[in-house]
């Protein structure tokens, strides 16, 4: 079965500093992985997706993620945090058998001025 574990429930950064959100996955085959962002009382927005075409994936709003098979990780980064990045972030893996999504528990990002 495919699953993801987000290693931090909460991350706090200062505006202008880098952001790192950690995600490990479990899958017996090459997975499809995604990062979504959710602002308060809003729907989930797809930030980026890994589909085995390239290990470094660039997404929207300056985010990128690197797929590392040897470490079973798919960490999300951004070089410089903006106040608007304050939100909850979900690491997600697609289940092989039925294309359903398995969500991580989420990481809440706080950005300090």
């Amino acid at each position, binding site marked *: 079965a495919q699953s993801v574990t987000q290693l931090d429930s909460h991350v706090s950064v200062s505006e202008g500093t880098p952001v790192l959100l950690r995600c490990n996955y479990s899958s017996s085959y090459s997975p*499809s992985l*995604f990062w*979504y962002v959710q602002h308060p*009382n*809003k*729907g*989930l*927005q*797809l930030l980026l*997706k890994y*589909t085995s075409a390239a290990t470094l994936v660039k997404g929207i709003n300056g985010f990128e993620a690197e797929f590392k098979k040897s470490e079973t990780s798919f960490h999300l980064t951004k070089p410089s945090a903006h106040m608007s990045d304050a939100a909850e972030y*979900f690491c997600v893996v*697609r289940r092989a058998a039925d*294309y*359903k*999504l398995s*969500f991580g*528990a*989420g990481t809440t990002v706080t950005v300090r001025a």
Partner: protein
Amino acid sequence: SQTIHQWPATLVQPVGSPLSLECTVEGTSNPNLYWYRQAAGRGLQLLFYSVGIGQISSEVPQNLSASRPQDRQFILSSKKLLLSDSGFYLCAWRFGTAFGEQYFGPGTRLTVT
């Protein structure tokens, strides 16, 4: 481009009252459609999914039901709401791509009093 709509945006209903939440997708045909619930502190839970008109699969037994009367319309219903039905309800769609990402609507905040 594709757009997904949900209404109402917020809803306050008494225990025992009926419920109808609607989701529509524009700009695509024959999408896979999904209903999720996001309860406080419990992450996203898949409730129902549909691969076509009249085809509904339930993920968990509960007080809710779903219907798909038209290709791009997905309805979540209940005959009698429970307090535990409170939460943030999200509709999502997926086209038949190989990667499996889903696109989420803006959500409906349901409070059962």
